[in-house]
């Protein structure tokens, strides 16, 4: 009984770190030793670099090999006029299993929609008509908006200093990592935590 309570106390921070997540916005094995939460903004240039250059390496070396469980969190910054709209569409798309497709497109065309504000055009370009209809109808749903706000609140609680920020966790140990997110250093950190 006492041992159970101690174990629960030990696990609580880790459970809290990855609770309230949308399973459709994750990648990898939930039982992986290391969990990485990615707090990102679709309109942030550094997030685009991370998504297109570092994330594929992370997925290849650690997610595909079962060492890392990846959780995507929305952290639209107020300074970006269209990032919350983008997050709405991406989160709505996640409900139907298209999160990665929409996220890839949003980062790919970031410069264009950021300048014109035509976020939907980018989202629609990678979905069928039926999928578009579903995503459009869900984007303003209270549950979608609430989910994004929960992510934002979680980010503020950490606190996330800039985007992208990765929260790398193993058990009770949890480290927010931001900055250039050099892959060599990130790989070393994950390997050290995995030991």
């Amino acid at each position, binding site marked *: 009984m006492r041992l159970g309570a101690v174990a629960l106390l030990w696990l609580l921070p880790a459970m809290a770190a990855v609770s309230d997540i949308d399973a459709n916005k994750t990648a990898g094995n939930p039982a992986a030793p290391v969990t990485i939460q990615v707090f990102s903004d679709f309109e942030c240039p550094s997030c685009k670099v991370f998504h297109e250059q570092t994330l594929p390496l992370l997925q290849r070396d650690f997610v595909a090999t079962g060492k890392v469980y990846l959780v995507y969190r929305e952290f639209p910054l107020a300074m970006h006029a269209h990032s919350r709209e983008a997050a709405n569409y991406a989160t709505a798309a996640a409900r139907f299993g298209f999160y990665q497709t929409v996220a890839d497109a949003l980062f790919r065309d970031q410069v264009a929609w950021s300048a014109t504000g035509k976020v939907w055009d980018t989202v629609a370009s990678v979905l069928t008509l039926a999928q578009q209809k579903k995503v459009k109808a869900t984007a303003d749903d209270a549950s979608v908006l609430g989910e994004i706000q929960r992510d934002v609140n979680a980010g503020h609680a950490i606190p996330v*200093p800039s985007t992208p920020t990765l929260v790398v966790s193993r058990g009770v140990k949890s480290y*927010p990592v931001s900055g250039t997110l*050099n892959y060599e*250093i990130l790989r070393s950190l994950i390997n050290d935590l995995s030991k």
Partner: protein
Amino acid sequence: MTSPSKALRAVTLLLRVALGAVFVYAAWTKLRTPWELFAMSIDSYQLLPLKAVELVARTLPWFELAVGLLLIAGFWLRSAATATALLLAVFFGLMVRAYAKGMEINCGCFGPGEIISWKTLLRDGSMLASALALTALSFFQRRKTASLI
């Protein structure tokens, strides 16, 4: 009435203990987390190659700890104060450069999560001024002691 030399000694004591405590705290925030977190902050300045980033990330916190403890203890005060001033001058210069270039990066001063801003510049600038004052005081007091002998 307090004599000028007593007042100077009190200022010296205050400066060395305050700066020493700040350096010990700065070292502790880095040593309690994996070295890679500090390395990520150093790398954000985009100045050093990866090998040098790793070397600095692994050694600088220990150097900060040693300097901080020397300042608090008052051992080798002139050397410790000079090292503190030089270190802070380098940190401050790098931070000003990053701020001027519009780089929104972690300063790396007290662990991760503190973006360079005018506040961090003001804080580190004040610390640099204090360290320079301490260095000057430590040399001045040494000279005064020597002249008395």
